[in-house]
């Protein structure tokens, strides 16, 4: 609404200070309002102007040509869209990543009506953004390109904009760009980082260096060795971490030599090992990260031993001593400093599967994770977070073994569940059956659910295969089971979520 300037002035300052001028209202209205008080005339003038303008609204004409429309490219089927709308409405919101993964697997774009809410969600949760960006489709990209804030955030993932972001972006964008460059061409990306390295502020160095983990090779070693002399501890730590996991690195070779001086190996029928603690931690050792952190429950020198073990890939021991991994483990477990030796070994085994794991590294990992409690350490739970780095078939074999023995190994079921929970995709049918059977066995033995059971069941509901649900209907306790009242709710929730996921999977197969 536009007000005449003198009317506006009177409105703000009050008619006592800025009396209404003759020109503030059209003459016809003035005549009508001649007999009312000044104060009332102000309001009546505003009301008349308001009505006048609303009734006589003159639309403007567009100055520019109409921009071409975005063609209505195919999106996901209607049924899948309806499932997505339910999820966005708050029915099983935890299944949103699952829906997005299915859409990606079927190579289908997001439905138009869900674009804005999902793009907004991606703005709030950077972790979701890459997934959403991949599913935008033609309509979504068209939309994002017109919105200033969206186009900035969503373009960061686009590979074409990499070099721009690397040179001009903020730190987070530069990290993403560097990783993308590493994926495309590791040596070129290293060269780009090297060129800027000397000018980078410390915070940038700390954030950028770990990005080299993508496509790490011996080609990067010289640069990382230099970084070991950096002024900042965090930069040195990042370089040590990378070098320790790099097969054939000089850092590993130096640590091998240091350990060789401490170990006396006796190769006869029953191999014997004597271990001495390091006397001192010299400058060169400190440079390699030995003694950089304290280890709980361990003496200083034992900690050095652990750090040294951590930097040597486990395959080195089986090759040098010509022993199978489980014999090496058994031998180390007999040592006085077994906690330090084995913890270091476990950490190095986890590092070794990080970069292109060879058959030897995988064998070590599998042996260690399957190691029973004879060592006195809980190796399985130490290695659990790194299990997903193994090839999928290997992971499933390990989990299958846990589940088969879960009847007598108390923790095997929770290990399997923890693994299933970390995965983004649903399990294959056969581990699903085993996992559910183990859960049912545990349930049958308990009169009522423990406090953590709810989260266990929620994890099952997300992880189990929902392609067919026949297996999930079977093997529950009979209807007359006396403890059903305590368990009913959990089981119902599980089945309901599985049904929902089943519907969700089937919805993508319908005709668009």
């Amino acid at each position, binding site marked *: 609404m536009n007000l005449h300037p003198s009317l506006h002035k009177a409105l703000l300052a009050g008619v006592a200070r800025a009396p209404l001028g003759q020109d503030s209202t059209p003459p016809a209205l003035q005549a009508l309002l001649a007999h009312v008080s000044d104060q009332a005339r102000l309001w009546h003038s505003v009301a008349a102007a308001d009505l006048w303008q609303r009734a006589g609204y003159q639309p403007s004409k567009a100055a520019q040509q109409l921009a071409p429309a975005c063609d209505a490219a195919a999106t996901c089927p209607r049924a899948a869209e*309806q499932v997505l709308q339910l999820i966005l409405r708050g029915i099983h919101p935890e299944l949103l990543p699952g829906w997005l993964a299915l859409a990606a697997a079927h190579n289908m774009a997001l439905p138009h009506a869900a674009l804005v809410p999902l793009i907004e969600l991606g703005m709030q949760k950077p972790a979701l953004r890459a997934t959403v960006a991949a599913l935008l489709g033609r309509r979504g990209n068209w939309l994002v390109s017109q919105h200033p804030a969206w186009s900035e955030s969503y373009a960061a993932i686009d590979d074409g904009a990499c070099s721009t972001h690397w040179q001009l972006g903020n730190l987070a964008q530069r990290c993403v760009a560097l990783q993308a460059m590493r994926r495309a061409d590791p040596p070129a990306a290293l060269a780009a980082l090297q060129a800027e390295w000397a000018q980078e502020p410390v915070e940038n160095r700390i954030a950028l260096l770990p990005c080299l983990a993508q496509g790490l090779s011996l080609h990067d070693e010289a640069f990382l060795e230099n970084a070991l002399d950096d002024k900042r501890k965090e930069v040195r730590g990042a370089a040590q971490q990378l070098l320790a996991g790099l097969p054939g690195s000089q850092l590993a070779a130096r640590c091998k030599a240091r350990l060789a001086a401490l170990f006396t190996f006796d190769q006869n029928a029953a191999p014997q090992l004597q271990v001495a603690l390091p006397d001192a931690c010299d400058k060169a050792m400190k440079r390699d990260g030995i003694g950089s952190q304290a280890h709980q429950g361990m003496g200083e020198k034992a900690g050095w031993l652990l750090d040294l073990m951590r930097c040597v890939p486990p395959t080195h021991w089986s090759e040098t001593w010509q022993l199978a991994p489980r014999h090496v483990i058994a031998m180390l477990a007999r040592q006085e400093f077994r906690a330090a030796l084995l913890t270091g070994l476990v950490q190095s085994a986890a590092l070794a599967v990080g970069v292109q794991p060879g058959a030897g590294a995988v064998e070590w990992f599998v042996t260690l994770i399957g190691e029973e409690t004879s060592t006195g350490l809980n190796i399985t739970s130490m290695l659990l977070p790194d299990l997903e780095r193994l090839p999928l078939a290997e992971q499933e074999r390990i989990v299958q073994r846990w589940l088969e023995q879960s009847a007598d190994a108390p923790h095997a079921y929770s290990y399997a569940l923890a693994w299933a929970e970390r995965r983004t995709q649903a399990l294959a049918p056969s581990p699903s059956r085993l996992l559910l059977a183990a859960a049912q066995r545990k349930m049958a033995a308990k009169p009522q659910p423990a406090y953590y059971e709810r989260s266990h069941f929620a994890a099952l509901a997300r992880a189990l295969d929902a392609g067919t649900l026949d297996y999930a209907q079977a093997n529950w306790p009979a209807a007359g089971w006396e403890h059903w009242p305590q368990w009913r709710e959990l089981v119902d*929730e599980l089945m309901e979520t599985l049904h929902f996921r089943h519907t969700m999977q089937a919805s993508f197969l319908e005709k668009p």
Partner: protein
Amino acid sequence: MTLTADQILALAPDPASAKAGSAQSSQSKWSGLGAHAQALWGLCQGSGKDPYKAQIELAGPSFKCTCPSRKFPCKHGLGLYLLYARDAAAFGQADAPAWVSDWLQSREQRSEKKAAKLADAEAAHTPEELAAKEQSQQKRQDKRQGNVEAGLAVLDTWLADLARDGLAGLRSKPAKDWEAMAARLVDTQAAGLAARVRRAGMAIYGSSAANWEVPVARELAQLALLSQGYRRLANMPAALQQDLKAAIGWVVGQDEVLAEAGHADRWLVCGIQTQDDERISRRACYLRGLDSGRWAMLLQFSAGAQPLPPPLLPGTCHQGTLHFYPGALPLRVAFGADVCLVPDPVQAPPPASDVNALLAEYANALAVNPFAEHYPMLLGQVVPQFDGAQFSLRASDGTLLPLLPSFRHGWQVHAIAGGAPASVFGLWNGYGLLPLAVSAHGRLHALDGERVA
């Protein structure tokens, strides 16, 4: 037409019920499922000993369940309907058990009884009784008139003070003055004016936008206009008197409205708008008569924390008689007893695409009722476009209609239309459009989302 899952969940009183309802929609929870043309029913095992009997009359849809929940519809009703939408084949029985047919019958009887009672009310009284009733009514009216006049006198003084001192200094004065004025108007039975005073107060203290004084001045000017108009009530056309009294706070009883002749048509639900106040939630559902082209609005209210009654679903069509509340520009309606959901999808006529004709229609509406704020507008063949600052709708001849700056789902409209012509339904207030629904590619997308602006 069976509703889709999304539409069924839109009937839920709150998100928690929607979630619980969808959890009830698995077949394992139900027994004795059945359906015929009028109703669905089923037994759901809840925490009680006996299963709950849930039933739905499809024409309403109306729900009934024997569970003790105070939510309406309850999760069992929603679950039953969702299950039906997903798997109608599971509803094997076609013969309604006694508890279903009894309920349907009682509903029918009740609506008949209601109609009969209305008819009786006129006839049953002796002339003396009627005269006495009229007298007491007149007495009440007189008292109210006196109250309102007292309130308007205070309001006039207050407005004159504001005009004398100007609006510039308002933000440094306490907000509770406005609340006190509103409370005063409520006390003098002028609730409509009180709501406007609160709204003006919100515009002053509740936003940090520049140019805030203009909307406040409009609101105050309307108050002055209403107050002045009330003094001259007798000189106005009878229909406009009703509009003015409604704006001040007089409420016409629904029974009175239903007693008047109604307007039969097929009514398409075009859009809904929900507004929450701290005291009262209000939802307006806009309908258009497919044959007559008339606009109608159904208002739903709920007090305090209570959920609103289930909404009319945009895109559905209801057949029956709507009774218009009296006024120069009748819009608000009460549903007659015969209104029911049309089961098949209907073919709506293509909406008008001549923007100037629609603006002229709005100008005519204002000429008939100058107290009207906004009016429904259905635009066909318009392209939503964004000029870097605000959204507008572009008609095929290049005419631009701006969307209100307070509208929050501009990007959503843009995403759905994709730069191609679409139909948009909304409310036009003379300066901008508040869209409530957009249709593209033969699909209607409601923009209610709990408050569009």
